[in-house]
């Protein structure tokens, strides 16, 4: 068995709508070791959520479709699995926490029931047994177990997010994908939720892909960081390298004047001037070239390959090839 938990090879995801084809993810390569935490950052529309949904094979179809690539989970390609096999993985081996806690819980079932459902499904126990696990999980995310029978609308946003975390971790998954778990919450609650995630990760040795806009969040949990732009990964590397020794012009723009890794101030992405191209009208060549201060003539013709400039630090830019 390889020591990689997850390996994504040349993943492509397209959304085919009436207005045209949105190329949301265009050839992503990514690896993750067991127990590792990877931060995935990028502007809105970069394709982060789509990548995550791709891993779970939950890209809404139609309009979305995985058009190419491989997703190896413990060496097995998820894209070749039957839907029935995928269902045994979802929520069990790979879990996801979604962007918006306010709308991600079903309003007509109690939170306990929603957690228990997960447990009963994958561990083959009754809903009732699942409820006691739900109680345990709620306690773990610092919600009184007595509230298992309450409904989502009786909880605050931060609490709902914690319920979602409890739900995602109820079956001790090998991989947790957290899609901007804190963006919808206010700052103090954000910190609480982050603490809980960090604590739990240590406790159950789960790998984490933390998707976020927020460089502060990235600095807090990640060991490695991947920077996404218009459906491609432009730079990946160890946390310290990305924060202090970033190479790609886009990443440089992203960090602007704040190189301090220990700056606990929440630092939102402040990208270079201009807008990210629409996924429907991606430019030829490197997708960043229209905004790139270092753009060369070649950049508008060819797409750069990813180059390892230091051990574990990859950049996709012609400046380095």
């Amino acid at each position, binding site marked *: 068995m390889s020591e990689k938990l997850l390996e994504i090879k040349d993943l492509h995801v397209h959304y085919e709508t009436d207005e045209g084809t949105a190329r949301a993810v265009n050839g992503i390569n990514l690896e993750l070791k067991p127990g590792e935490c990877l931060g995935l950052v990028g502007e809105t529309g970069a394709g982060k959520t789509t990548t995550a949904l791709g891993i779970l094979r939950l890209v809404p179809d139609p309009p979305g479709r995985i058009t190419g690539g491989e997703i190896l989970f413990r060496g097995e390609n998820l894209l070749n699995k039957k839907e029935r096999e995928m269902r045994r993985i979802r929520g*069990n081996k790979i879990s*996801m926490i*979604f962007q918006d806690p306010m709308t991600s*819980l079903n309003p007509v079932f109690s939170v306990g029931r929603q957690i228990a459902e*997960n447990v009963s499904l994958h561990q083959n126990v009754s809903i009732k047994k699942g409820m006691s696990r739900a109680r345990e999980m709620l306690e773990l995310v610092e919600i009184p177990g007595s509230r298992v029978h309450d409904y989502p609308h009786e909880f605050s946003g931060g609490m709902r997010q914690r319920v979602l975390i409890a739900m995602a971790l109820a079956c001790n998954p090998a991989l947790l994908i957290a899609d901007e778990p804190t963006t919808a919450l206010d700052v103090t609650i954000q910190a609480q939720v982050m603490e809980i995630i960090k604590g739990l990760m240590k406790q159950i040795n789960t790998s984490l892909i933390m998707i976020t806009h927020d460089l502060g969040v990235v600095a807090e949990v990640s060991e490695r960081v991947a920077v996404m732009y218009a459906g491609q990964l432009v730079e990946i590397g160890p946390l310290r390298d990305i924060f202090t020794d970033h190479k790609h012009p886009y990443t440089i723009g992203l960090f602007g004047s704040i190189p301090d890794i220990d700056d606990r101030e929440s630092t939102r992405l402040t990208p270079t001037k201009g807008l990210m191209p629409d996924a429907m009208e991606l430019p030829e060549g490197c997708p960043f070239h229209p905004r790139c201060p270092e753009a060369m003539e070649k950049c508008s013709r060819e797409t750069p390959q990813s180059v390892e400039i230091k051990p574990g630090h990859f950049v996709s830019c012609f400046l380095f090839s």
Partner: protein
Amino acid sequence: MLKYIVKRLISMVPVIIGVTFVVFAIMHFTPGDPATLLLGEEAPPAEVERMRERMGLNDPFLVQYGNFLFGLFRLDLGFSLTTGRPVFNEIANRLPATIQLAAAAILVAIFIGVIMGIIASTRQYTVFDGGAMFVALLGVSMPNFWLGLMMILVFSVFWNNTFGYVLFPSSGFGTLRHLVMPAIVLGTAHAAFITRITRSSMLEVLRQDYIRTARSKGLNERVVVYLHALRNALMPVVTMAGLRFGVLLGGSVVTEQIFAIPGMGRLLVESVRSQNYTLVQGIILTYAIIFSLVNLAVDLLYAAIDPRIQVQYK
């Protein structure tokens, strides 16, 4: 919960009183003299006049209305002008048939409508979707009296000519076999309506984030659709179906007529023809009350489905 039901029942009162006023006023201006109707054309004028006096027909309109309203609180709706029996009893005799018919029809409609709506929404843009939606469109465009006649034609007349027996009887009431055709006839338009609402409501719900969450747990699609999505999607369906129940009640009048069902609708048509205005008045009022009660039931059902509403009831 009980408190809420009582509160809702009380809030029905002004509307029902409004209805009594409107209906009473309409009937008051109906041509034809009730006293003459009661006594027959040949009755001597003096006797008719005495009758008018006794029936209070010479009182001012508002006094008459006041008396009517007062009687209503004692469940006294006056007397039928053709049989002389209390209107209340006449209606009570006919009510069960109408309620059975309406209940059977609504069951048919919900069952067929919800299933077709789900099939259409989970297979959006396929032939199933197109087919279900076209059938539903035909269903809402079809007059039920025509459907009734066509069903009699096929299942009573042609069937009898071909096989020598009647599959479903074309008239009468009492057995389940008698109820089949009327229930389908009355339920079809409603089923079609429910299909359309269920579909659009399901499509809306299936896009929600919590459905994605449910899928991300590894639940199979049937659980996602029938448990997680349907329960949410049913709320607008229940509301709209309740509001539309009035159309179903209206349809029952015609259906009873076609299949010779001894319900309130047939009584209504007979009473209109014989200008039996006290009976018409009582029947219309009864329909309005049934309609209001159904909508109350819908509200309670709604609360049973949606925990967010329950809070308001405590």
